[in-house]
């Protein structure tokens, strides 16, 4: 009798947990590039891009697939705190075995964690794991969030349970395997290019620690990594941060590409940015074509275009091309679209 009651209680709890996790997934209704990352089948990505909005607004994953056949996942979120890097690499390693990891350093100045949304956009997408708990702890401890509110970050259900009202109303269909195309990224906002300043500004303790622990993790796990510095308008201080980070990375014999100082890559600052921090769809097309070619040649990436298992990539590319035409009236197939300025 006791055993029967115990068995029933355990079954009741198991069913409860299954329903709970399903509902939790349904109620998290605002997906981003990270949620797209988790949708990919295990070990199906050739490249994973980790970083801030510069990753999902700059690298067009479906275009790279269309032109070179390799698949790219974006472990990228808005104003991503630099402290997350190591944890996100760990997360990628759990699900994928990419030939190369690209780490975008455009967010090196995001270390204060004052933006609650920035923390949520990373951790709320991650499945429950020790890594997620460790990252949550790290980000919360280095933020100004009150201790009494920490619980809301560990149990995201507390935050999202009331989104039931919006189910069905808020569809996010502007992501294409993580790449963002919407009314914002088709805007043209002319910017003034600042020449790169090679002076160094010291990274603070948090930035240094984040960078060093990421490098240590890369070395310990023998990962193939390229650090990148995205094209955008930088202030002098951020340039200085990047210069010091570049030194640290190079001293550790790791690769870093600064697209702002590349001699064979250039964007049109009067046309290719939608604000001072991000390139628009034309700029992204130029950048993707340039960088995808580099990745493909350097790492000899697989071409999956004729593999049926990867047909979702072709479908997403077609959806992207259709949306682009609808939004801009232009055709991605037009060879002049986003042509690389040489």
């Amino acid at each position: 009798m006791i055993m029967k009651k115990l068995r029933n209680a355990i079954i009741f709890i198991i069913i409860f947990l299954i329903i709970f996790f399903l509902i939790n997934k349904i109620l998290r209704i605002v997906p981003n590039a990270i949620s797209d990352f988790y949708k990919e089948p295990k070990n199906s990505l050739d490249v994973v891009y980790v970083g801030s909005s510069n990753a999902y607004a700059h690298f067009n994953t479906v275009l790279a697939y269309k032109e070179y056949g390799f698949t790219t996942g974006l472990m990228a979120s808005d104003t991503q705190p630099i402290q997350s890097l190591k944890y996100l690499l760990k997360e990628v390693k759990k699900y994928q075995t990419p030939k190369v990891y690209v780490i975008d350093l455009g967010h090196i100045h995001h270390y204060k964690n004052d933006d609650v949304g920035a923390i949520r956009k990373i951790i709320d997408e991650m499945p429950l794991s020790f890594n997620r708990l460790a990252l949550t702890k790290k980000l919360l401890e280095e933020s100004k969030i009150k201790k009494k509110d920490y619980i809301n970050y560990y149990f995201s259900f507390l935050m999202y349970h009331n989104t039931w009202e919006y189910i069905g109303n808020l569809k996010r269909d502007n992501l294409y395997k993580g790449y963002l195309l919407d009314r914002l990224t088709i805007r043209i906002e002319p910017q003034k290019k600042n020449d790169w300043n090679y002076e160094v500004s010291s990274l603070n303790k948090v930035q240094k620690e984040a960078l060093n622990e990421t490098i240590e993790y890369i070395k310990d796990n023998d990962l193939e990594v390229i650090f990148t510095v995205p094209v955008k308008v930088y202030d002098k201080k951020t340039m200085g941060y990047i210069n010091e980070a570049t030194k640290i990375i190079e001293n550790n014999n790791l690769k870093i590409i600064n697209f702002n100082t590349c001699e064979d890559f250039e964007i049109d600052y009067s046309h290719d940015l939608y604000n001072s921090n991000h390139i628009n769809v034309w700029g992204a097309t130029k950048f993707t074509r340039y960088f995808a070619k580099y990745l493909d040649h350097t790492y000899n990436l697989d071409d999956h275009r004729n593999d049926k298992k990867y047909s979702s990539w072709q479908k997403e590319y077609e959806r992207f091309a259709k949306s682009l035409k609808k939004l801009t009236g232009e055709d991605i197939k037009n060879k002049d679209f986003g042509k690389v300025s040489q």
Partner: protein
Amino acid sequence: MILTSLTFLLFCVITLLIYFLVPKKCQWFVLLLSSIFFLFYKNFNIGTFFYVLLTFLSAYFSALFIERYINKKHTKWFLVGGIVLILGQLILLKYVNLILITISPIWHLFGKSINLNIFSPTAPIGVSYYSLIMISYIVDVYRGMCKAQKNPLKCALFMSYFPILTSGPFIRYPDMKNKLYEKHKFNYDNLCRGLIRIIWGLFKILVISQRLAIFVNSIYANYLSFNGIYIFLAAIFFTLQLYTNFSGSIDIIMGVSKIMGIELPENFHSPFFSKTITELWRNWHITLGAWLKDYVFYPLMKSNIIQKIGTKTKKKFGKKVSKKITLYISMLIMWTLIGAWHNGAYTFIIGSGILQFIYMVLEDLLAPIASKVNKKLGINQETFGYKLYQCLRTFLLFSFAMIFFRATSVANAIDIIKHMFSFKGTVLTKLFSLGLTKANFIVLIISLIILFVVEYLQLKGSVTDIILEQNIVLRWTLLYLLIFAILIFGMYGPGYDQTIFIYRQF
């Protein structure tokens, strides 16, 4: 500690685990330790400790002395001494401002003013509950209904039993002495019944009460901008908010206590199905009403003053009228005390005291007239329609009185009532812009229907029994539906105020 918080959940889980793991003879001591922790959780200072200790020592020693000197001339003085000390500190903690407000006009006549903020101490949690509980304890010892508890720690447990500290119910020592100190085995049936009760309480608070609070707060904060219909709706919603909040808290408390095998007295019995205000109060805050009847009303009716008034009025107006006069005087005193118990403010004295008294007197006086009129008009009082009318009438009268309960002052309440009868402006077009969207209103209405169905079923028996009698598929489906309704539609988490626990402040 908020009853719907994760802290309380954690506290209960730890307490229950230790309670069932320690040797059974130590169980009561575990309860004492957790009750002390609960009593002083985030509220410990010399002042609160002193007040709690004073109440405890007063009750403990007066009960001991009463028992030792029972049937002696001065026994009464131990009783009076104990009551005065306990009531004294209760008045000091909760009613000094009310007294100062009351006497300040007299003071003004002498050209002097009173600083109303002269004394604002932090009251220990549950002071209004444990003070009355300890008064009943010493009175029961005096009346010979129970023996004094010689073990001071066991006596302290009776005073501070943690489930009752936030919202009652009022417990009595003769009923509780065995339950609190006897050994309790873990019982699966108690666990199921306790959990169902807790879940139902959480549903009432998180899904209904907190949702209603959003609407009510929007209207009361800015009532001048609203048409009378909104204020009318807010008054009705506040009554429902108060009920679901208070009875939901009681459900959680009863559930926790049930799991430990300690049955507490019921505090509500479907009050909104009452046909008169008198009946409603027999089903609303039952243990407070019973306490005041046993320890105030009946002693008052037997007191020398009331007896003397009875004799004088009997000579002047006859036996029937004299009986009514003494009854109404005692009732007035009792209802004023019920109002005052809720809080030391005139809004409470009027809303949950004097107005209720007036309703009851009118019911008593008008009942024969209404009966005659109904007979003459051929109205059958046994029909469903007539009973529904009676229930609605009672509910509306009660809701009207609750405007005072919710208002910030008597003047504020009168102003709100005035606006209730102004029908200028748009009618219900702003309904979905007062914090509750259309979808939230739908959830609210469905939840209220569920509440009333359950309340109706409770009139006939235990709903928990009905659930537990079903086959496993239906039983579990019902429970999952309820649990997930709370998790999804509950108003909790960031952005919601967990401190809206109306009865906690008393």
